[in-house]
């Protein structure tokens, strides 16, 4: 039976480098996409992504397995993003505002067969709608999709209550459904 994230993190804190490699391998893709779709530029995303992992590495001795590892990791990511947004003049309160810090929409794949053209257009619309979401709603959606976090875990990671997290998720879903014609 493969080790859980929590076991791997504790093992790493105890000195097992291979445990971290396994953990990193599991979470690097989802976390990267979370950060990438939260900020404007890919170069910025790479820098923030690296910083999140550096902080997790340095804080390994403070990790407590009472919280899920992914919740802890996304809490660190959220805090780093908040610092990034604050540097741009945003406050925590304004993260729920519309039309702030629009992320760079993810470009749909270019050379697609005709059969997949509609899917490609759909993806394009979704991508643009995602980029247009208020920061807090986009973050909630991405944490749910990439990090597989529940509303309660999103609330814990973002420092809000479960109702607020559910609302943000619901609003995000409704806007994205509208974008893809559902």
């Amino acid at each position, binding site marked *: 039976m493969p080790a859980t994230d929590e076991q791997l993190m504790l093992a790493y804190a105890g000195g097992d480098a291979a445990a*971290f490699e396994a953990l990193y391998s599991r979470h690097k893709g989802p976390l990267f996409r979370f950060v990438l779709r939260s900020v404007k530029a890919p170069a910025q995303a790479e820098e923030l992504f690296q910083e999140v992992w550096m*902080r997790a590495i340095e804080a390994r001795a403070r990790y407590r397995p009472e919280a899920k590892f992914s919740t802890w990791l996304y809490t660190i990511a959220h805090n780093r993003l908040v610092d990034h947004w604050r540097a741009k003049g945003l406050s925590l309160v304004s993260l729920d505002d519309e039309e702030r810090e629009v992320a760079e929409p993810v470009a749909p794949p270019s050379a697609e067969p005709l059969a997949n053209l509609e899917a490609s257009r759909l993806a394009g619309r979704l991508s643009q709608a995602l980029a247009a979401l208020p920061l807090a709603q986009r973050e909630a959606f991405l944490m749910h999709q990439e990090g597989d976090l529940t509303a309660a875990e999103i609330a814990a990671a973002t420092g809000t209550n479960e109702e607020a997290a559910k609302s943000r998720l619901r609003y995000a879903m409704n806007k994205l459904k509208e974008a893809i014609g559902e």
Partner: protein
Amino acid sequence: MSESDGKVSAAYRSLAREEPPASLDAAILAASRGALARPSASRRWAAPVSIAAVLVLAFGVTLRMQQEKPGVESPDMDATRPAQRVAVPAAPPAAAEKFEDKAVAEPSPPMKQAAAPREEARAKKQVAPAAKPDKVEADRALRDEVRVESERKDLKERAAVSELAKESNVASPAAAPVPQAKLQSREFAPEPPASPAPPSAAASAPAPARLKREALAAQAPAGVAADAQAVDEPTRELEAIAKLRVEGRHEEADKALGEFRRKRPDYRIPDAMWERVKPK
């Protein structure tokens, strides 16, 4: 999840599945290995801080004893004759009357009442045999403080009953722990002069007091108040950074803020505090 929610998820998953570049992977994994090669900051500092804490506590207790109980140490109070102090409350009524005959102001009941706190103090000393090693110093200081208080009351009566105390040889089981406490107190307290503590000891108090606070703060995670201290510590650190901002020491503040973030990546800085500590 509803069907339409499922379609949104499916559409999302059809987006490009970006991955970090290999160079970034390599850098992060190298950093993870490098971090293990050097001990964490807390481990690096644990031994020196613990030693400093013990030294500061020992110094503090010594200083306090010098300041608070000049002249308390006397030949009457050594380990060989602990029973004599207990003999005062155990004195027979005749002795108490004799005591009164000597024109001492206090009658025997107050003498016994005064002795009761001493008994209680000794009982307390008896009750605490299994103190954790890291509380021994604090317990010792507390015991000494209680003893000092009771001995102050003793001084009033001692003038009149000193003859009686020397002649008595009643043993008491309650006295058993006292010798150790007194021996230990003698370790820390030099022969006290009748005058107050020398100026040099008082003058050096501020620096040890500061070191003691820092050492105690460093020791805090092992103590009962660890959780409360852990809650306050980030706020204190942020307040210190805010103070640097007010003083215009922005470079130090930036460095401290970066260090804070590295140490506490999962700590949420409230907006109001952020306004005070953010980079200018």
